[in-house]
């Protein structure tokens, strides 16, 4: 187990970050090249001012029609995504690791706050899973991959929380936590989680069409 832990925290961590970063950059560049090659009659209308204006609405809770009409999902998804970035980036446990291995350090969230936010993420993942299985219009379009990606995020946070609280075998859970966190990073460029990479561009593009050609808002 110790060997696996060492592997996970050492070489695999490098690998995961490498695949995540290089994979993401590759996917973005490849998609850009494809757009320029095949979607010329649409790329031509891209207008950043319109894109930013629309994105500002869509990054505001209840700032767009779709958010207002789906209040439950809106609250859940905003909290979920904010914590998704906030907790791992500003977690004392993580910063300590960077400090130990690379000598990098930055301010951390108070442990208690991070803990609560992490638990919130686990709860929201459970809510997302529940929606997938029981809300008819969501279930109709759910495939195994959708269940998998939410579970992966949920598992990473859950094992992190359990490890922090020393519930269960700490070494096993920490190792499991690190492995699932790494799997999640690797999954971002190659699964539905790639919405993190492409989401702002797909919205920005359609906002440009609405703004510069159709003179109508898209939020």
């Amino acid at each position, binding site marked *: 187990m110790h060997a696996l832990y060492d592997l996970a925290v050492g070489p695999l961590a490098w690998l995961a970050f490498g695949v995540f970063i290089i994979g993401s950059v590759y996917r973005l560049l490849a*998609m*850009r090249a*494809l*757009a320029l*090659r*095949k*979607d010329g*009659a*649409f790329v*031509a*209308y891209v207008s950043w001012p319109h894109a930013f204006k*629309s994105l500002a609405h*869509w990054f505001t809770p209840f700032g*767009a*029609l*779709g*958010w207002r*009409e*789906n209040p439950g*999902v809106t609250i859940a*998804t905003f909290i979920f995504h904010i914590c998704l970035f906030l907790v791992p980036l500003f977690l004392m446990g993580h910063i300590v690791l960077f400090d130990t291995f690379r000598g990098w350090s930055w301010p951390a969230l108070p442990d208690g706050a991070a803990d609560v936010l992490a638990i919130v993420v686990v709860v929201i993942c459970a809510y997302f899973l529940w*929606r*997938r299985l029981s*809300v*008819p*219009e*969501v*279930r*109709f*379009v*759910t*495939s195994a991959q*959708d269940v998998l990606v939410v579970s992966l995020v949920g598992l990473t946070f859950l094992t992190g929380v359990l490890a922090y609280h020393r519930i269960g075998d700490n070494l096993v859970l920490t190792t499991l936590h690190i492995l699932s966190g790494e799997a999640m990073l690797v999954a971002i460029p190659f699964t*539905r989680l*790639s*919405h993190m*990479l*492409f*989401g702002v*561009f*797909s*919205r*920005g*593009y*359609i*906002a440009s069409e*609405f703004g510069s*050609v*159709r*003179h*109508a*808002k*898209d*939020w």
Partner: protein
Amino acid sequence: MSTIADRLIEDEGLRRGVSRLTPEKIEKVFKELIAGECGARLKTYVESCVRCGMCAKACHYYMSHKDPSYTPVAKVSQTMWRLLAAGGRVEPQVIYECAQVAYTECNLCRRCIHYCPLGIDTGYIISVVRRLCHKLGVTPQYIQDTAHSHSAVLNQMWVKDDEWPDTLQWQEEEAREEFPGLRIPLDVEGADFMYSVIAPEPKFRTQLIYQAAAIFNAAGLNWTMPATPGWDNSNMAMFTGDSEIMSRVERAHYETAQRLRVKRIVMGECGHAFRAVYDVANRWLGWKWHPVPVVHSVEFFWELIQQGRIKITHKYADPVTIHDPCNIIRGRGLMDKLREVTHFLCENVVEMSPNREHNYCCCAGGGVINCGPPFKNVRIVGNSIKAEQLRATGVHTLVAPCHNCHGGLEDIISKFGLGMHTKFLGDLIYELMEKPEAE
């Protein structure tokens, strides 16, 4: 859960089309289409859709049927995702199902873009499915007939070359009884604008040409209509997925305007035609903007009112409500001008809710009404949400500056017994305007 397979409707065009297919043939055409015409948009949309279902409430079909197989994302899952997952190698029956979803259960109204946080354009994905069905020869019979007509005579309704000027002259004659000096100027080179209409106007709604001529005459405008093909601005080929015919029609329309050396094209009160001319066909032809500027009637009437060229004797007294046609609102942002014109003409305007860019579609657009009687019930029952929206206004007059909307709304009004009647802006202006004295 029910799916499209549980509600198939017999259509001769679809049935004949699929009878000629094999899985190998479908696979070949599908692969060529994806490799040849699709790029980053389709790929991103399909991959990054998080299947959250937020778009469900956008779609009037879903809001009316409350059946999960009618949500925007469900339409994509039952068509494009299914085809992609199989690499295009599917049984012909699957193409029947895809065609029925794509042609008769989506109006390409773009309302769902206001709901999807990722900005996924379901209408575009559905257009790609239509393009595939067209290439496979699987199109509903009625709409295919209109596309054939575009191909043969460059208009939607099989209007023959000589019937067109005849009809205009007939309308001119009729109108001269009311306005003796009135002309419908044919083929006048260098006029300020060319007025173009959709083929159903000379075919069944000649009154609209009469009214337009009366309004332009009263306003003292320097205008013309072409005497040759190229006069029809409608474009059903755009909706069948026949981009080649679509662009021939549009090229003829623009080239006619160029031949007449007019300053711009003014288009009648039609939404889909505007979409074709303003937003879609120009791109297929490789023109980023328009070789001749185009304006929709709503904007044109607004200008005339601003310039004081339209004078009315009184305002329309009964309360009216406004239907915002997708193709000129989400398609061109004319919501404010439409309101200014309506308020200029009417005493009392009651807004429906939601309105402007968020308005529900009439469920006739996107070629759906043109798929004809077999699918009529689906689109009417599929828009009970619109009926509720209309009923809640409590008014009896509905202003809708779009031909398709008129068709769809009238069907809904009669089905749900709403006791309303629909009006074009042209109807109202003609009714209310100061008519020049007969000399």
